[in-house]
């Protein structure tokens, strides 16, 4: 029993140990390479523990955490993302003239928070996971604040994220409090029974749920809680942006979906309506905002708003169709989006460093002819984001359409099509710019030596995009089995 518990928590334990090891090492020897290597190693070790965890699934590790295939999938995804971020961070901070080592500690704690969030089955662990990730992220976003010549506006981004995030954390917590006040339990899976005992649905409960939704929507950057996204994406160092776009979203999504499905909240009329409105508006606003964006990081930020809107469609579909298909679809889309984003930010990161980021559209002019490989990766990402076949994005979009059709969400599907149409414009615009002949320009980002780690990330993620797009069957099987729990 206990041994099983330990095995179950192995990933979390490994992450914790690695964090401590990294911290201790930092205390004795500040060496960027060593620390980043240790971090990557620690993360890898944590990732690999899933081999041991797999056979003993599913298990509730106390009432706080549940480790099942679903959470394991997301944990793995999160750790992979963290490895990617660590690999990107090393070259990015290489020339950063102040201490870099804390970044890795923060990365570890953020990852730990994300994993906890993904596994959480209780509002306490939800809070802890979310805040562990959040607090680490405040510092990570503002990390280069000391540098004499920092690439962007880390301070501004940090403060913005901190205040807005704290504000919404407060809202979420208050929502949790209301829910708790109404039903008297904080475990996700106890909610339906408690609700039944409470009799009819009180507005307190509904408002509490909606406040929790608001908090989740903030982290997922859904309209109207999206507004921080572009500024923070832009101001944060690229690896952190990558973390925000991938790990943070995946973790939050995992827990939100679990909460909505396990508590049956998705079947509440109010929740469905609110989510529908959010999805529609996110799709349209996100795409509209991205339309003529000149900064690639902001462009990705806006497009992430739209993509999370797409994702929401699958979640909403769960109200009418078996939750399993919905979970399968969400997981796939999240996986696809995760891979695409990581790959995209890897490209930007590969071209950038902590003193200068190449994230203007103009910086990408002619990239295809100067550095075909990097630009091919970015083109693949953009096409995938646009949902073109041969890429993971297409299968993801296929899931949206399938679930949308099955639950007859015609309105959202219409929005989806309109949004995608607008979306095509800016993805193609960036592709077009890369394809044009380069102007003679001293600021040649491709001249920056491309580090091995970034290449590895790009290669792995691109391979994943194509593989998932061309032969998704094995992954679909996996997701199908993990979704069967719902």
């Amino acid at each position, binding site marked *: 029993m206990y041994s099983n518990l330990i095995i179950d928590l192995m990933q979390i334990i490994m992450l914790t140990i690695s964090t401590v090891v990294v911290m201790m090492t930092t205390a004795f020897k500040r060496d960027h390479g060593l620390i980043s290597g240790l971090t990557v190693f620690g993360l890898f070790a944590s990732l690999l523990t899933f081999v041991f965890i797999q056979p003993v699934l599913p298990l509730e590790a106390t009432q706080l955490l549940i480790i099942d295939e679903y959470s394991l999938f997301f944990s793995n995804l999160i750790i992979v993302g963290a490895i990617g971020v660590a690999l990107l961070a090393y070259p990015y901070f290489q020339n950063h003239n102040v201490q870099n080592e804390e970044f890795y500690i923060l990365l570890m704690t953020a990852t730990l928070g994300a994993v906890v969030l993904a596994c959480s089955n209780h509002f306490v662990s939800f809070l802890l996971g979310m805040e562990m990730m959040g607090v680490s992220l405040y510092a990570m976003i503002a990390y280069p604040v000391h540098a004499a010549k920092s690439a962007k*506006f880390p301070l501004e981004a940090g403060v913005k994220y901190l205040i807005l995030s704290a504000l919404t954390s407060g809202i979420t917590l*208050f929502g949790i409090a209301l829910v708790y006040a109404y039903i008297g339990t904080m475990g996700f899976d106890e909610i339906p029974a408690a609700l039944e005992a409470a009799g009819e649905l009180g507005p307190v409960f509904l408002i509490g749920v909606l406040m929790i939704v608001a908090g989740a929507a903030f982290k997922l950057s859904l309209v109207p809680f999206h507004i921080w996204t572009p500024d923070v994406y832009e101001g944060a160092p690229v690896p952190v942006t990558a973390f925000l776009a991938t790990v943070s979203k995946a973790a939050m999504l995992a827990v939100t979906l679990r909460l909505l499905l396990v508590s049956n909240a998705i079947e509440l009329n109010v929740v469905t309506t609110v989510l529908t409105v959010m999805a529609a508006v996110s799709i349209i606003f996100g795409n509209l905002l991205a339309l003529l964006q000149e900064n690639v990081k902001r462009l990705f930020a806006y497009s992430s708003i739209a993509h999370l809107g797409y994702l929401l469609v699958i979640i909403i579909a769960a109200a009418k169709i078996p939750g399993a298909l919905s979970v399968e679809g969400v997981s796939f889309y999240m996986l696809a989006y995760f891979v695409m984003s990581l790959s995209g930010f890897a490209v930007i990161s590969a071209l950038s460093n902590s003193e200068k980021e190449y994230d203007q559209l103009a910086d990408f002019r002619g990239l295809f002819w100067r550095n075909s490989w990097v630009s091919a990766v970015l083109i693949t990402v953009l096409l995938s984001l646009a949902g073109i076949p041969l890429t993971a994005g297409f299968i993801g979009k296929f899931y949206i359409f399938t679930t949308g059709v099955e639950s007859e969400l015609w309105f959202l599907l219409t929005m989806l099509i309109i949004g995608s149409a607008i979306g095509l414009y800016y993805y193609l615009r960036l592709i077009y710019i890369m394809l044009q002949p380069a102007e003679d320009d001293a600021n040649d980002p491709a001249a920056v030596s491309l580090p091995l780690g970034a290449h590895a990330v790009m290669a792995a993620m691109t391979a994943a995009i194509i593989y998932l797009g061309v032969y998704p069957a094995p992954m679909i099987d996996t997701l199908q089995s993990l979704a069967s729990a719902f």
Partner: protein
Amino acid sequence: MEMPTVTMQVIPMEHGLLLAAILFIMGMVGVLTRRNLVFILMSLEIMLNATGLAFIVASSHWGQVDGQIMFLMILSLAAAEVAVALGLVLQLFQKRKTLDINVLGEMKG
């Protein structure tokens, strides 16, 4: 062991929650109106504190421990958050010689 039961006068849970809500919204208004970063942080603390209150009220209603545990967690969260936030306050002041958050408006569009 039996818990010591203290008979208290009846206070409806609504009133507790109401107080929490009022404090919460006051904190929120503070966040929205102030321009000084420290005030904003204080307002955020008010909000957090109000949620803590709400948990205590709820836990009292249900006679459970869980709400108080949550309060503890909120406490530690507040501590961690404030620590980082004050770090940022220092940086802001150091860099801009002001605590006005309106100077942090360089990214837009």
